[in-house]
């Protein structure tokens, strides 16, 4: 009997080194749980996130991509997250315009002190993406292992 396996989405979380990555560490230090499907990639600043990386993640099988950075005004590099905010807003709007589920992409500002927010955000995001199901609209079939 084949039991239908529960869908576990692949989530890529890009976290800026100074706030959100530290926030993620803090949620670990505080033993706050969030699903293992979330894998974090450390980037120096949210402004390092090239839209290319997001599309790449979807191509390679991600079902959701989230960017976490310092709160606006708190960027370690002063202005990085302001640029990231515009870039991501426009990119997400474009993905939505192309009919790709807008819930698959998200930006959250998580400070180094917000371990609880990090865990809560991830839990919520995983739940949202799980409900959406597999990424079909921006998939690259070549990358889906048979």
């Amino acid at each position: 009997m084949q039991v239908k396996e529960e869908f576990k989405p692949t989530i890529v979380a890009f976290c800026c080194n100074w706030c959100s990555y530290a926030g993620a560490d803090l949620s670990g230090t505080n033993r706050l749980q969030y699903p293992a499907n979330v894998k974090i990639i450390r980037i120096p600043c949210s402004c390092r996130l090239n839209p290319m990386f997001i599309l790449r993640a979807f191509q390679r099988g991600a079902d959701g991509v989230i960017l976490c950075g310092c709160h606006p005004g708190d960027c370690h590099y002063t202005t990085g997250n302001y640029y990231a905010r515009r870039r991501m807003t426009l990119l997400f709007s474009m993905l939505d315009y192309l009919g790709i589920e807008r819930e698959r992409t998200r930006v959250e500002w998580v400070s180094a002190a917000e371990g609880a927010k990090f865990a809560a955000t991830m839990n919520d995001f995983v739940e949202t993406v799980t409900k959406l199901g597999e990424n079909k609209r921006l998939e690259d079939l070549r990358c889906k292992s048979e």
Partner: protein
Amino acid sequence: MKKCPISQLDALFAALAAQQKLYIPTGEAKTAAFKPWEEGMKLTDALNTVRSAKDLFFPQVENLVNFKVTGKEIEIIENRDPAEPFVVFGVRACDCRSFDILDKVFLCDPVDTYYQTRRENGVIMTMACTEPEETCFCTAFGIDPTDPAGDVSCWTDSENLYLRANTEKGEKLLSGLPMLSEGDAPAADKSVFERLPLKNLPLDKFGGEHMMELFNRPEWKGLAESCLGCGTCTFVCPTCQCYDIKEFNTGDEIKRFRCWDSCMYSDFTLMSAGQPRPTQLERFRQRFMHKLVYYPSTHDGEFGCVGCGRCLQKCPISMNIVKVAKTLGEEKE
């Protein structure tokens, strides 16, 4: 010769599609394309499709082989698309001639087995032209658009579709169709082709004899000047046959595939030492020299162009083989 009432066309397509995959030219004039036939699909009003029938035999992207990586082992996996028989209906005389040209490239030794398989599996049903576009100049290459080649040739008048099998494959295809009856097509009216503006393309100077002279002509500079270096002409061309072999790493597998390349691209035939044709002028010249000089010089004077006129319609800056041929072929008083 067989005939089939126009009213029975859908039934004819259905019968063909029941046996094998059937492609027909369909869609709006601006975007007409060969597509797999489905119930209710209409033939396009356009004279010709945007992309040529070449695509069905030599697709833009084609998988060749996979390399599977497990740990530190690499396994080689054949990855050919499954061979299935198919029919293309509505190929124009120009596109049909393009297969002669492609065959000479792909089926000479070493044979391109990917192309070969598709050629063997594909049946070409051509359609005679009655209302050419002003951009048509197939007659310049000795093609009779009113009497196209192919496995099966077709004509229409207001009531009937007339079909004539030219090859064994064609005979076999027609033999199984119950809606066909005997009947001959009325004689074609060729007068309109006489009025085609480009019918007298000055091709005498081309064909391989004046290779170096043509190569060094100063007019190339002016012709190539505005070329954007896009691949439109090559990708809509029924005779362009250049491809690149590329690899895609999926993470645990490497997929080797081939895709069309364009001699107009800056990385065409890029080598470790650099680009053999470093400027657009050289790349531009390559394309037209190939069609009008290099190909004929190695293939008994046969030109690498069939006069379908697609590049005339599609070039973003309206530079094309006709302008090249006229510039280089006419003058020289």
